[in-house]
Protein backbone atom coordinates (compact mmCIF):
# COMPACT_ATOMS: atom_id res chain seq x y z
CA UNK A 1 0.00 0.00 0.00
CA UNK A 2 1.15 3.52 -0.72
CA UNK A 3 1.40 6.10 2.05
CA UNK A 4 -1.83 7.69 0.85
CA UNK A 5 -3.63 4.34 0.78
CA UNK A 6 -2.49 3.53 4.30
CA UNK A 7 -3.81 6.85 5.55
CA UNK A 8 -7.10 6.30 3.77
CA UNK A 9 -7.35 2.89 5.38
CA UNK A 10 -6.92 4.37 8.87
CA UNK A 11 -9.53 7.02 8.16
CA UNK A 12 -11.96 4.34 6.97
CA UNK A 13 -11.26 2.07 9.94
CA UNK A 14 -11.81 4.92 12.33
CA UNK A 15 -15.03 6.03 10.68
CA UNK A 16 -16.59 2.64 11.50
CA UNK A 17 -16.87 3.79 15.12
CA UNK A 18 -19.20 6.62 15.96
CA UNK A 19 -18.76 6.72 19.70
CA UNK A 20 -15.43 7.80 21.13
CA UNK A 21 -15.53 4.95 23.59
CA UNK A 22 -15.64 2.56 20.64
CA UNK A 23 -12.73 4.37 19.03
CA UNK A 24 -10.83 3.88 22.26
CA UNK A 25 -11.69 0.18 22.18
CA UNK A 26 -10.22 0.10 18.70
CA UNK A 27 -7.07 1.91 19.86
CA UNK A 28 -6.78 -0.48 22.80
CA UNK A 29 -6.93 -3.41 20.38
CA UNK A 30 -4.26 -1.79 18.21
CA UNK A 31 -2.17 -1.18 21.33
CA UNK A 32 -2.44 -4.78 22.42
CA UNK A 33 -1.41 -5.95 18.96
CA UNK A 34 1.68 -3.78 18.76
CA UNK A 35 4.85 -5.75 18.11
CA UNK A 36 6.92 -6.30 21.26
CA UNK A 37 9.52 -3.62 21.93
CA UNK A 38 12.88 -4.87 23.25
CA UNK A 39 13.36 -3.95 26.91
CA UNK A 40 16.95 -2.92 26.28
CA UNK A 41 15.74 -0.27 23.87
CA UNK A 42 13.66 1.44 26.56
CA UNK A 43 16.33 4.05 27.12
CA UNK A 44 15.93 7.72 27.96
CA UNK A 45 17.13 8.86 24.55
CA UNK A 46 14.25 6.93 22.94
CA UNK A 47 11.67 8.43 25.32
CA UNK A 48 9.39 10.99 23.75
CA UNK A 49 9.16 14.09 25.90
CA UNK A 50 5.84 15.81 26.52
CA UNK A 51 3.64 12.77 27.12
CA UNK A 52 1.93 11.96 30.43
CA UNK A 53 2.66 8.29 29.90
CA UNK A 54 6.05 7.01 28.83
CA UNK A 55 6.47 6.47 25.09
CA UNK A 56 9.55 5.03 23.45
CA UNK A 57 10.21 5.31 19.75
CA UNK A 58 13.01 3.77 17.73
CA UNK A 59 13.71 4.03 14.00
CA UNK A 60 15.96 1.99 11.76
CA UNK A 61 16.93 2.78 8.23
CA UNK A 62 17.02 -0.22 5.88
CA UNK A 63 17.40 0.07 2.10
CA UNK A 64 16.52 3.73 2.19
CA UNK A 65 13.32 3.22 4.16
CA UNK A 66 12.54 3.91 7.82
CA UNK A 67 11.11 1.21 10.05
CA UNK A 68 9.68 2.24 13.42
CA UNK A 69 9.26 0.36 16.65
CA UNK A 70 7.46 1.85 19.62
CA UNK A 71 6.02 1.17 23.04
CA UNK A 72 4.20 2.88 25.88
CA UNK A 73 3.17 1.95 29.40
CA UNK A 74 -0.34 3.26 28.64
CA UNK A 75 -2.38 1.13 26.27
CA UNK A 76 -4.36 3.87 24.48
CA UNK A 77 -1.12 5.72 23.85
CA UNK A 78 0.29 2.45 22.53
CA UNK A 79 -2.68 2.29 20.18
CA UNK A 80 -2.07 5.81 18.96
CA UNK A 81 1.64 5.30 18.34
CA UNK A 82 0.87 1.95 16.71
CA UNK A 83 -1.49 3.70 14.34
CA UNK A 84 1.16 6.29 13.50
CA UNK A 85 4.01 3.88 12.90
CA UNK A 86 1.67 1.56 10.98
CA UNK A 87 1.25 4.36 8.47
CA UNK A 88 4.83 5.63 8.33
CA UNK A 89 6.91 2.47 8.76
CA UNK A 90 8.47 1.42 5.47
CA UNK A 91 8.31 4.89 3.93
CA UNK A 92 11.33 6.84 2.79
CA UNK A 93 12.65 9.55 5.13
CA UNK A 94 11.96 12.09 2.37
CA UNK A 95 8.30 11.11 2.14
CA UNK A 96 7.83 11.23 5.91
CA UNK A 97 9.62 14.55 6.30
CA UNK A 98 7.49 16.06 3.54
CA UNK A 99 4.20 14.71 4.95
CA UNK A 100 1.76 17.03 6.73
CA UNK A 101 0.30 14.35 9.06
CA UNK A 102 -3.09 15.82 8.19
CA UNK A 103 -4.89 12.48 8.50
CA UNK A 104 -4.49 12.70 12.29
CA UNK A 105 -6.77 15.76 12.27
CA UNK A 106 -9.12 14.04 9.84
CA UNK A 107 -9.85 11.20 12.25
CA UNK A 108 -10.42 13.79 15.00
CA UNK A 109 -7.79 12.29 17.25
CA UNK A 110 -6.17 15.54 18.24
CA UNK A 111 -9.42 17.33 19.07
CA UNK A 112 -10.59 14.50 21.24
CA UNK A 113 -7.61 14.29 23.47
CA UNK A 114 -7.17 16.67 26.39
CA UNK A 115 -4.49 19.33 25.80
CA UNK A 116 -1.76 17.44 27.67
CA UNK A 117 -2.48 14.33 25.64
CA UNK A 118 -2.82 16.30 22.43
CA UNK A 119 0.65 17.67 23.21
CA UNK A 120 1.81 14.10 23.61
CA UNK A 121 0.47 13.30 20.15
CA UNK A 122 2.20 16.36 18.71
CA UNK A 123 5.43 15.22 20.38
CA UNK A 124 5.07 11.78 18.79
CA UNK A 125 4.56 13.31 15.36
CA UNK A 126 7.49 15.70 15.86
CA UNK A 127 9.74 12.81 16.87
CA UNK A 128 8.77 10.75 13.83
CA UNK A 129 9.49 13.78 11.64
CA UNK A 130 12.81 14.44 13.35
CA UNK A 131 13.89 10.83 12.92
CA UNK A 132 12.95 11.14 9.24
CA UNK A 133 14.97 14.37 8.89
CA UNK A 134 17.96 12.65 10.49
CA UNK A 135 17.55 9.64 8.23
CA UNK A 136 17.74 11.63 5.00
Amino acid sequence: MSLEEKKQQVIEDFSLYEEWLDKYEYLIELGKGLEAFPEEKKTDDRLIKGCQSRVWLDAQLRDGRLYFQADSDAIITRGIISLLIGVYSGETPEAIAADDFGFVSEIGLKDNLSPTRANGLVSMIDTIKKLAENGR
Partner: protein
Amino acid sequence: MTVTEIRALFPILDTPVYGKPLVYLDNAATAQRPQAVVDCWKELVEGANANIHRAVHHLAAQATDAYEGARNRVQTFLNAAAREEIVFTSGATASINLVAFSYGQVFVNQGDEIIVSTCEHHSNMVPWQMLCERKGAKLRVLEPNRDGLLDPAALSALLNEHTKMVAIAHISNVLGLVNPVKELVRIAHKAGVPVLVDGSQGVVHEKVDVQDLDCDFYAFSGHKIYAATGTGVLYGKRKWLEAMIPYMGGGEMIETVRFSGTTYAPLPMKFEAGTQNFNAVPTLVPALDFADAVRENPAVKAEQQAILDKVYSKLTEDKRITLYGTGKENKIPLFSFAVKGAHHEDLALILDKMGVAVRSGQMCAEPLMDHLGVTGLLRASFAPYNTVEEANYFLKSLDKAIEMLV
Protein backbone atom coordinates in the same frame (compact mmCIF):
# COMPACT_ATOMS: atom_id res chain seq x y z
CA MET B 1 -30.64 23.47 51.86
CA THR B 2 -30.69 20.06 50.23
CA VAL B 3 -27.82 18.83 48.08
CA THR B 4 -30.07 19.27 45.04
CA GLU B 5 -30.63 22.90 46.00
CA ILE B 6 -26.90 23.35 46.50
CA ARG B 7 -26.21 21.90 43.04
CA ALA B 8 -28.58 24.45 41.56
CA LEU B 9 -26.19 27.18 42.77
CA PHE B 10 -23.56 25.79 40.35
CA PRO B 11 -24.85 26.14 36.78
CA ILE B 12 -21.69 24.55 35.35
CA LEU B 13 -22.67 21.20 36.87
CA ASP B 14 -25.53 21.04 34.36
CA THR B 15 -23.19 21.38 31.39
CA PRO B 16 -23.11 18.05 29.53
CA VAL B 17 -19.79 16.70 28.25
CA TYR B 18 -19.81 14.52 25.11
CA GLY B 19 -23.59 14.48 25.47
CA LYS B 20 -23.37 12.90 28.92
CA PRO B 21 -24.04 14.46 32.32
CA LEU B 22 -20.87 15.92 33.82
CA VAL B 23 -19.63 14.17 36.94
CA TYR B 24 -16.99 16.54 38.22
CA LEU B 25 -14.62 14.75 40.57
CA ASP B 26 -11.52 16.90 40.21
CA ASN B 27 -12.40 19.22 43.06
CA ALA B 28 -9.03 18.90 44.74
CA ALA B 29 -7.51 20.56 41.65
CA THR B 30 -10.11 23.32 41.52
CA ALA B 31 -13.64 23.68 42.82
CA GLN B 32 -16.51 25.04 40.80
CA ARG B 33 -17.87 28.45 41.75
CA PRO B 34 -21.37 29.08 43.02
CA GLN B 35 -23.41 31.72 41.21
CA ALA B 36 -22.91 34.17 44.11
CA VAL B 37 -19.16 34.11 43.49
CA VAL B 38 -19.57 34.58 39.75
CA ASP B 39 -22.00 37.47 40.37
CA CYS B 40 -19.66 39.13 42.86
CA TRP B 41 -16.78 38.89 40.38
CA LYS B 42 -18.91 40.32 37.59
CA GLU B 43 -20.30 43.16 39.71
CA LEU B 44 -16.81 44.22 40.71
CA VAL B 45 -15.55 44.26 37.15
CA GLU B 46 -18.64 46.01 35.83
CA GLY B 47 -19.41 48.35 38.68
CA ALA B 48 -16.45 48.93 40.97
CA ASN B 49 -13.30 48.64 38.93
CA ALA B 50 -10.65 50.96 40.31
CA ASN B 51 -7.25 50.50 41.89
CA ILE B 52 -7.44 50.13 45.64
CA HIS B 53 -6.06 52.12 48.57
CA ARG B 54 -4.54 55.21 46.96
CA ALA B 55 -7.06 57.20 44.97
CA VAL B 56 -9.67 59.37 46.69
CA HIS B 57 -12.46 58.91 44.17
CA HIS B 58 -15.71 57.02 44.66
CA LEU B 59 -14.93 53.86 42.67
CA ALA B 60 -11.58 53.44 44.40
CA ALA B 61 -13.27 53.70 47.77
CA GLN B 62 -15.81 51.03 46.74
CA ALA B 63 -13.08 48.69 45.46
CA THR B 64 -10.99 49.25 48.60
CA ASP B 65 -13.96 48.51 50.85
CA ALA B 66 -14.66 45.28 48.99
CA TYR B 67 -11.01 44.23 49.16
CA GLU B 68 -10.52 45.07 52.84
CA GLY B 69 -13.91 43.57 53.64
CA ALA B 70 -12.60 40.30 52.28
CA ARG B 71 -9.68 40.52 54.70
CA ASN B 72 -12.12 40.80 57.60
CA ARG B 73 -14.05 37.81 56.28
CA VAL B 74 -10.88 35.70 56.03
CA GLN B 75 -9.90 36.75 59.54
CA THR B 76 -13.19 35.49 61.00
CA PHE B 77 -13.09 32.41 58.74
CA LEU B 78 -9.72 31.36 60.18
CA ASN B 79 -10.33 32.94 63.59
CA ALA B 80 -7.08 34.87 63.29
CA ALA B 81 -6.28 37.19 66.20
CA ALA B 82 -5.93 40.25 63.98
CA ARG B 83 -6.76 41.31 60.42
CA GLU B 84 -3.13 42.38 59.99
CA GLU B 85 -2.22 38.69 60.12
CA ILE B 86 -4.06 38.05 56.83
CA VAL B 87 -1.97 38.64 53.70
CA PHE B 88 -3.47 38.28 50.24
CA THR B 89 -1.41 36.46 47.63
CA SER B 90 -2.08 34.85 44.26
CA GLY B 91 -2.52 31.39 45.79
CA ALA B 92 -1.12 28.89 48.27
CA THR B 93 2.05 28.47 46.20
CA ALA B 94 2.73 32.21 46.41
CA SER B 95 1.94 32.20 50.14
CA ILE B 96 4.46 29.45 50.83
CA ASN B 97 7.12 31.00 48.60
CA LEU B 98 6.64 34.25 50.48
CA VAL B 99 7.35 32.57 53.82
CA ALA B 100 10.22 30.48 52.46
CA PHE B 101 11.87 33.67 51.21
CA SER B 102 10.97 36.29 53.81
CA TYR B 103 11.25 34.07 56.86
CA GLY B 104 14.18 32.17 55.37
CA GLN B 105 16.23 35.30 54.67
CA VAL B 106 16.00 36.34 58.32
CA PHE B 107 15.97 33.09 60.26
CA VAL B 108 17.65 30.35 58.21
CA ASN B 109 21.41 30.02 57.95
CA GLN B 110 24.02 27.54 56.84
CA GLY B 111 23.71 24.23 58.65
CA ASP B 112 20.09 24.83 59.66
CA GLU B 113 17.35 22.32 58.86
CA ILE B 114 13.86 22.53 57.42
CA ILE B 115 11.44 19.65 57.83
CA VAL B 116 8.90 18.82 55.11
CA SER B 117 6.88 15.64 54.77
CA THR B 118 7.01 13.09 51.96
CA CYS B 119 3.33 13.78 51.30
CA GLU B 120 3.71 17.43 50.33
CA HIS B 121 2.53 19.01 47.12
CA HIS B 122 5.54 20.36 45.20
CA SER B 123 4.42 23.83 46.28
CA ASN B 124 5.24 23.01 49.88
CA MET B 125 8.49 21.31 49.00
CA VAL B 126 10.31 23.12 46.21
CA PRO B 127 10.26 26.59 47.88
CA TRP B 128 11.95 25.04 50.94
CA GLN B 129 14.41 23.17 48.76
CA MET B 130 15.27 26.45 47.02
CA LEU B 131 15.72 28.12 50.41
CA CYS B 132 18.04 25.33 51.53
CA GLU B 133 20.10 25.65 48.37
CA ARG B 134 20.32 29.41 48.83
CA LYS B 135 21.36 29.20 52.45
CA GLY B 136 23.31 25.96 52.61
CA ALA B 137 20.63 24.50 54.87
CA LYS B 138 19.40 20.92 54.91
CA LEU B 139 15.98 19.58 53.96
CA ARG B 140 14.84 16.79 56.29
CA VAL B 141 11.97 14.53 55.32
CA LEU B 142 9.17 13.40 57.61
CA GLU B 143 7.79 10.11 56.34
CA PRO B 144 4.15 9.15 56.89
CA ASN B 145 2.99 6.03 58.70
CA ARG B 146 1.61 3.03 56.80
CA ASP B 147 -1.81 4.59 56.34
CA GLY B 148 -0.25 7.78 54.98
CA LEU B 149 -0.76 9.87 58.10
CA LEU B 150 1.90 12.12 59.64
CA ASP B 151 3.02 10.81 63.00
CA PRO B 152 3.86 13.19 65.88
CA ALA B 153 6.42 10.75 67.29
CA ALA B 154 8.23 10.63 63.94
CA LEU B 155 8.32 14.42 63.87
CA SER B 156 9.64 14.50 67.40
CA ALA B 157 12.54 12.27 66.32
CA LEU B 158 13.49 14.62 63.46
CA LEU B 159 13.48 17.87 65.43
CA ASN B 160 16.76 19.18 66.75
CA GLU B 161 18.47 22.47 67.63
CA HIS B 162 19.15 23.16 63.94
CA THR B 163 15.49 22.89 62.86
CA LYS B 164 14.12 26.22 61.72
CA MET B 165 10.77 25.30 60.20
CA VAL B 166 8.29 22.44 59.87
CA ALA B 167 6.19 22.65 56.69
CA ILE B 168 3.33 20.16 56.42
CA ALA B 169 0.00 19.68 54.71
CA HIS B 170 -3.19 19.80 56.74
CA ILE B 171 -4.59 17.23 54.29
CA SER B 172 -2.43 15.68 51.55
CA ASN B 173 -3.78 16.34 48.06
CA VAL B 174 -3.04 12.70 47.19
CA LEU B 175 -3.87 10.77 50.34
CA GLY B 176 -6.89 12.72 51.58
CA LEU B 177 -6.12 12.14 55.26
CA VAL B 178 -6.53 14.81 57.91
CA ASN B 179 -3.19 15.06 59.66
CA PRO B 180 -3.07 15.63 63.43
CA VAL B 181 -1.90 19.19 62.86
CA LYS B 182 -2.63 20.50 66.34
CA GLU B 183 -0.49 17.78 67.89
CA LEU B 184 2.28 18.21 65.31
CA VAL B 185 2.34 21.94 66.06
CA ARG B 186 2.52 21.27 69.78
CA ILE B 187 5.49 18.94 69.29
CA ALA B 188 7.32 21.41 67.04
CA HIS B 189 6.69 24.29 69.44
CA LYS B 190 8.06 22.26 72.31
CA ALA B 191 11.32 22.26 70.34
CA GLY B 192 10.91 25.98 69.64
CA VAL B 193 10.23 25.48 65.92
CA PRO B 194 7.49 27.30 63.96
CA VAL B 195 5.09 25.40 61.70
CA LEU B 196 3.68 26.29 58.31
CA VAL B 197 0.53 24.42 57.38
CA ASP B 198 -0.40 24.04 53.72
CA GLY B 199 -4.15 24.26 54.04
CA SER B 200 -5.03 24.03 50.34
CA GLN B 201 -7.13 20.92 50.89
CA GLY B 202 -7.61 21.25 54.64
CA VAL B 203 -9.45 24.54 54.60
CA VAL B 204 -12.08 23.12 52.25
CA HIS B 205 -12.99 20.20 54.47
CA GLU B 206 -12.15 21.19 58.03
CA LYS B 207 -13.24 24.05 60.22
CA VAL B 208 -9.91 25.82 60.68
CA ASP B 209 -9.17 27.84 63.79
CA VAL B 210 -5.57 29.03 63.53
CA GLN B 211 -5.48 30.11 67.18
CA ASP B 212 -6.63 26.71 68.31
CA LEU B 213 -4.19 24.92 65.96
CA ASP B 214 -1.58 27.43 67.12
CA CYS B 215 0.23 27.09 63.78
CA ASP B 216 2.55 29.95 62.81
CA PHE B 217 1.52 30.11 59.17
CA TYR B 218 -1.48 28.77 57.28
CA ALA B 219 -1.67 29.00 53.50
CA PHE B 220 -4.52 28.33 51.10
CA SER B 221 -5.77 29.09 47.58
CA GLY B 222 -9.09 30.75 46.82
CA HIS B 223 -9.90 28.69 43.74
CA LYS B 224 -10.05 25.41 45.65
CA ILE B 225 -12.59 26.88 48.05
CA TYR B 226 -15.05 28.27 45.47
CA ALA B 227 -13.47 31.74 45.06
CA ALA B 228 -11.95 33.29 41.95
CA THR B 229 -8.64 32.04 40.60
CA GLY B 230 -5.59 34.12 41.38
CA THR B 231 -6.63 34.65 44.98
CA GLY B 232 -4.73 33.23 47.91
CA VAL B 233 -4.27 33.70 51.60
CA LEU B 234 -1.34 33.63 53.93
CA TYR B 235 -2.10 33.71 57.61
CA GLY B 236 0.95 34.44 59.72
CA LYS B 237 1.35 35.16 63.39
CA ARG B 238 2.06 38.84 63.85
CA LYS B 239 5.38 38.23 65.63
CA TRP B 240 6.74 36.39 62.56
CA LEU B 241 5.29 38.74 59.96
CA GLU B 242 6.76 41.71 61.86
CA ALA B 243 10.20 40.08 61.96
CA MET B 244 10.24 38.99 58.31
CA ILE B 245 11.54 41.13 55.46
CA PRO B 246 9.28 42.01 52.50
CA TYR B 247 9.07 39.48 49.66
CA MET B 248 8.67 41.94 46.80
CA GLY B 249 9.31 45.66 46.62
CA GLY B 250 7.16 48.33 45.05
CA GLY B 251 3.63 49.68 45.11
CA GLU B 252 1.72 49.67 48.32
CA MET B 253 4.36 48.04 50.51
CA ILE B 254 6.32 51.20 51.32
CA GLU B 255 6.10 53.87 53.98
CA THR B 256 8.69 56.33 52.62
CA VAL B 257 11.00 55.94 49.65
CA ARG B 258 14.30 57.81 49.38
CA PHE B 259 17.41 56.89 47.44
CA SER B 260 19.11 56.79 50.82
CA GLY B 261 16.73 54.02 51.88
CA THR B 262 13.10 52.89 52.04
CA THR B 263 10.97 52.12 55.02
CA TYR B 264 8.19 49.60 54.73
CA ALA B 265 4.47 49.86 55.27
CA PRO B 266 2.92 48.23 58.34
CA LEU B 267 1.25 44.83 58.13
CA PRO B 268 -0.31 43.50 56.02
CA MET B 269 0.64 45.98 53.23
CA LYS B 270 4.31 45.19 53.74
CA PHE B 271 3.69 41.91 51.93
CA GLU B 272 1.28 43.18 49.28
CA ALA B 273 3.55 44.79 46.71
CA GLY B 274 2.18 45.86 43.35
CA THR B 275 -1.41 46.03 42.17
CA GLN B 276 -3.45 43.45 43.96
CA ASN B 277 -6.09 41.19 42.40
CA PHE B 278 -8.82 43.54 43.60
CA ASN B 279 -11.55 42.29 41.27
CA ALA B 280 -11.14 38.75 42.48
CA VAL B 281 -10.18 38.92 46.17
CA PRO B 282 -13.67 40.05 47.30
CA THR B 283 -15.12 36.82 45.84
CA LEU B 284 -13.63 35.18 48.92
CA VAL B 285 -16.57 36.62 50.88
CA PRO B 286 -19.40 34.68 49.17
CA ALA B 287 -17.04 31.72 48.70
CA LEU B 288 -16.20 31.42 52.40
CA ASP B 289 -19.85 32.06 53.34
CA PHE B 290 -20.72 29.09 51.15
CA ALA B 291 -17.90 26.93 52.57
CA ASP B 292 -19.00 27.65 56.14
CA ALA B 293 -22.65 27.00 55.35
CA VAL B 294 -22.14 23.63 53.63
CA ARG B 295 -19.69 22.38 56.22
CA GLU B 296 -22.39 22.54 58.88
CA ASN B 297 -25.26 21.49 56.61
CA PRO B 298 -26.74 18.16 57.84
CA ALA B 299 -27.86 17.07 54.36
CA VAL B 300 -24.36 17.66 52.96
CA LYS B 301 -22.73 15.90 55.89
CA ALA B 302 -24.93 12.85 55.41
CA GLU B 303 -24.32 12.80 51.65
CA GLN B 304 -20.54 13.18 52.07
CA GLN B 305 -20.45 10.40 54.64
CA ALA B 306 -22.45 8.13 52.33
CA ILE B 307 -20.05 8.90 49.46
CA LEU B 308 -17.07 8.18 51.69
CA ASP B 309 -18.56 4.88 52.89
CA LYS B 310 -19.55 3.75 49.43
CA VAL B 311 -16.37 4.64 47.54
CA TYR B 312 -14.02 3.63 50.35
CA SER B 313 -15.59 0.16 50.60
CA LYS B 314 -15.48 -0.41 46.87
CA LEU B 315 -11.89 0.77 46.42
CA THR B 316 -10.58 -1.22 49.38
CA GLU B 317 -12.55 -4.40 48.61
CA ASP B 318 -11.90 -4.61 44.86
CA LYS B 319 -8.85 -6.84 44.44
CA ARG B 320 -7.78 -5.08 41.24
CA ILE B 321 -7.48 -1.76 43.06
CA THR B 322 -4.96 -0.36 45.54
CA LEU B 323 -6.14 2.68 47.49
CA TYR B 324 -3.46 4.95 48.95
CA GLY B 325 -4.35 6.85 52.10
CA THR B 326 -6.29 4.45 54.27
CA GLY B 327 -7.95 4.61 57.66
CA LYS B 328 -11.52 5.82 57.26
CA GLU B 329 -11.65 7.81 60.50
CA ASN B 330 -9.24 10.41 59.09
CA LYS B 331 -10.31 10.22 55.46
CA ILE B 332 -12.05 12.89 53.43
CA PRO B 333 -13.83 11.91 50.20
CA LEU B 334 -10.63 12.15 48.16
CA PHE B 335 -9.38 8.88 46.71
CA SER B 336 -6.11 8.21 44.91
CA PHE B 337 -5.62 4.69 43.66
CA ALA B 338 -3.92 2.38 41.20
CA VAL B 339 -5.52 -0.36 39.14
CA LYS B 340 -3.50 -3.48 38.45
CA GLY B 341 -2.72 -3.81 34.76
CA ALA B 342 -4.32 -0.49 33.78
CA HIS B 343 -2.47 2.79 33.35
CA HIS B 344 -3.93 5.79 35.17
CA GLU B 345 -3.85 7.83 31.98
CA ASP B 346 -5.91 5.23 30.08
CA LEU B 347 -8.46 5.08 32.89
CA ALA B 348 -8.78 8.86 33.00
CA LEU B 349 -9.19 9.04 29.21
CA ILE B 350 -11.98 6.50 29.20
CA LEU B 351 -13.72 7.98 32.25
CA ASP B 352 -13.56 11.38 30.58
CA LYS B 353 -15.52 10.06 27.62
CA MET B 354 -18.11 8.75 30.07
CA GLY B 355 -18.49 12.25 31.46
CA VAL B 356 -16.42 11.67 34.59
CA ALA B 357 -13.69 14.23 35.29
CA VAL B 358 -10.89 12.79 37.41
CA ARG B 359 -7.22 13.54 37.75
CA SER B 360 -4.46 11.21 36.64
CA GLY B 361 -0.70 11.36 37.00
CA GLN B 362 1.65 12.44 39.74
CA MET B 363 -0.56 15.18 41.15
CA CYS B 364 2.37 17.51 41.83
CA ALA B 365 3.76 15.05 44.37
CA GLU B 366 6.60 13.17 42.67
CA PRO B 367 8.44 12.31 45.90
CA LEU B 368 5.26 10.77 47.30
CA MET B 369 4.78 8.75 44.08
CA ASP B 370 8.35 7.48 44.44
CA HIS B 371 7.68 6.65 48.08
CA LEU B 372 4.58 4.67 47.10
CA GLY B 373 6.46 3.03 44.21
CA VAL B 374 4.05 4.16 41.49
CA THR B 375 4.48 6.26 38.33
CA GLY B 376 1.14 7.95 38.92
CA LEU B 377 -2.33 7.45 40.29
CA LEU B 378 -5.94 8.15 39.48
CA ARG B 379 -7.68 10.58 41.83
CA ALA B 380 -11.38 11.20 42.42
CA SER B 381 -12.06 14.10 44.77
CA PHE B 382 -15.59 14.97 45.84
CA ALA B 383 -17.13 18.31 46.81
CA PRO B 384 -20.29 19.14 48.79
CA TYR B 385 -22.26 19.43 45.55
CA ASN B 386 -21.46 15.85 44.55
CA THR B 387 -24.02 13.14 45.21
CA VAL B 388 -24.07 9.45 46.06
CA GLU B 389 -25.68 8.94 42.66
CA GLU B 390 -22.59 10.44 41.04
CA ALA B 391 -20.36 8.28 43.23
CA ASN B 392 -22.25 5.22 42.01
CA TYR B 393 -21.97 6.33 38.38
CA PHE B 394 -18.24 6.88 38.88
CA LEU B 395 -17.77 3.39 40.34
CA LYS B 396 -19.80 1.81 37.55
CA SER B 397 -17.83 3.72 34.91
CA LEU B 398 -14.57 2.75 36.58
CA ASP B 399 -15.61 -0.89 36.41
CA LYS B 400 -16.36 -0.56 32.72
CA ALA B 401 -13.06 1.21 32.05
CA ILE B 402 -11.10 -1.50 33.86
CA GLU B 403 -12.88 -4.17 31.86
CA MET B 404 -11.95 -2.42 28.63
CA LEU B 405 -8.30 -2.22 29.63
CA VAL B 406 -7.51 -5.37 31.56
